């Protein structure tokens, strides 16, 4: 007896990624650099978020050729992004054997009401969230992993911090409420009641929660880990910096040793230029990717 792709197995892969760094790459060479630097997985993209932001226009699923090239180049899991609600992009990614699908606000949404029913897929999904309501709705749709949205492509960690703190505070509200208040909390957060019940029983989210969106330095990664994340995604922060391999390695070591400032100081030394950041208050509401998702 052998059953493939149960929810336990989907969630299990996310468990194995814990404490690790998932890196955005645009080709096989970058993927190899990421793997050698200690990445636990790579996100295969045509353009990293900073470039998507700069270029404008409609951002879609990356070309299948680029994704397959990355899958062939490394032995670690490979993730790829589908547009919010674009279940056919997800079907295509599943058919080429992708290890994880990111239903991502970094791409232009394909549906302004619905997300993908992720329970219909063999491949596990990761989804962004800005608060507990959004995280819970994605889990109800079948997400096996959650990440903060942050503000991708900015190199500015403030939004990721805000989203992580919001999720933590709202979980604490669920844990400290008495069960008579649970339905009211479900209404307040727009969170499915059964997911809140799971959280109350487990004392935490039922799936792994990573930090993403704006992480650019070893200190940023350690900050998110100290705030209680299970691991980090680094998008533009690595390959938009002066010395990608060295920065990638430093962020990996910092994510493991997030509680040891001496190690953090050591790996932060002589890293070269980080990516140039963007101040969030210079972005218009339409330019904020975290607003996408319903």
């Amino acid at each position: 007896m052998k059953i493939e792709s149960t929810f336990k197995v989907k969630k299990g892969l996310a468990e194995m990624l814990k404490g690790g760094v998932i890196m955005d790459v645009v080709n096989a060479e970058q993927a190899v650099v990421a793997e050698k630097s200690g990445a636990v997985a790579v996100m295969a993209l045509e353009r990293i978020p900073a470039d998507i932001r700069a270029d404008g226009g409609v951002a879609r699923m990356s070309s299948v050729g680029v994704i397959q090239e990355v899958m062939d180049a490394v032995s670690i899991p490979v993730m790829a992004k589908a547009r919010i609600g674009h279940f056919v992009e997800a079907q295509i990614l599943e058919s080429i054997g992708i290890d994880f699908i990111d239903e991502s606000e970094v791409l232009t949404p394909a549906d302004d009401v619905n997300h993908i029913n992720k329970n219909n897929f063999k491949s596990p999904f990761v989804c962004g969230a800005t608060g507990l309501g959004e995280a819970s709705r994605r889990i109800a749709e079948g997400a096996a992993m959650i990440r903060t949205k942050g503000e991708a492509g900015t190199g500015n960690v403030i939004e990721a911090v805000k989203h992580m703190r919001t999720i933590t505070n709202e979980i604490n509200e669920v844990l400290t409420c008495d069960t008579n208040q649970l339905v009211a909390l479900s209404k307040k957060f727009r969170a499915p009641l059964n997911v809140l019940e799971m959280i109350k029983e487990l004392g935490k989210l039922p799936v792994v929660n990573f930090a993403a969106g704006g992480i650019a330095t070893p200190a940023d990664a350690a900050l998110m880990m100290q705030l209680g994340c299970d691991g980090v995604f680094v998008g533009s922060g690595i390959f938009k910096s002066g010395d990608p391999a060295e920065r990638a390695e430093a962020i990996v070591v910092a994510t493991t040793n997030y509680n040891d400032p001496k190690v953090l100081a050591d790996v932060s030394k002589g890293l070269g230029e980080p990516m140039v950041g963007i101040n969030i208050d210079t972005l218009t509401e339409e330019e904020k990717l975290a607003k996408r998702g319903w």
Partner: protein
Amino acid sequence: MKVGILSLQGSFFDHQKSLDLVSLESLLIKTPEDLDKVDGIILPGGESTAMSKISSYNNLYKKLDTKIKQGLPTLSTCAGTIILAKSVIDGDTHIPNIDIEIQRNAYGRQNESFEADVKFLNNNDIYCFIRAPKIIRTLNNDVKVIATQIEDIVGVSQNNIVSLTYHPELTNDNYYLEWLLAFMKEGKYVGSF
């Protein structure tokens, strides 16, 4: 007694939960100094390439290797088993201590990950195999096969080491937990269990 869990990356908190369930004290191991404080060690699942890279920062594997060779009770799962294998097909060896030949991601990619019935010693239960490696063969007679999934070898023991390719820490059934307690206390493979 205190059991260490290699905590560079991977499912180390899940193993900590297993140890909590049998009231064994645990310590998350990140530095060579941490290894002096424990009487047993668990190498968890995760990505073996990432763990090895992270370990090189403070040379943790060198001391871990010495401790294992000195007889520290050692349990490995999934990527942890790749780290201990003497021969890795299409991959690097890390701290070779168990005489097996292993193949990484042998069942395929994540879509081929599965749950299946495993015979572990005298018990059957359902466990997760996640992008799991496969033990292709044992390299000598010192290695005992202790877990099978149909005809595949999924668990072996040699001296003070037990190596599995699946994830008992995600199931935490009573048989496994009682065995874990006995193994860490005995300091070696508990075959009569």
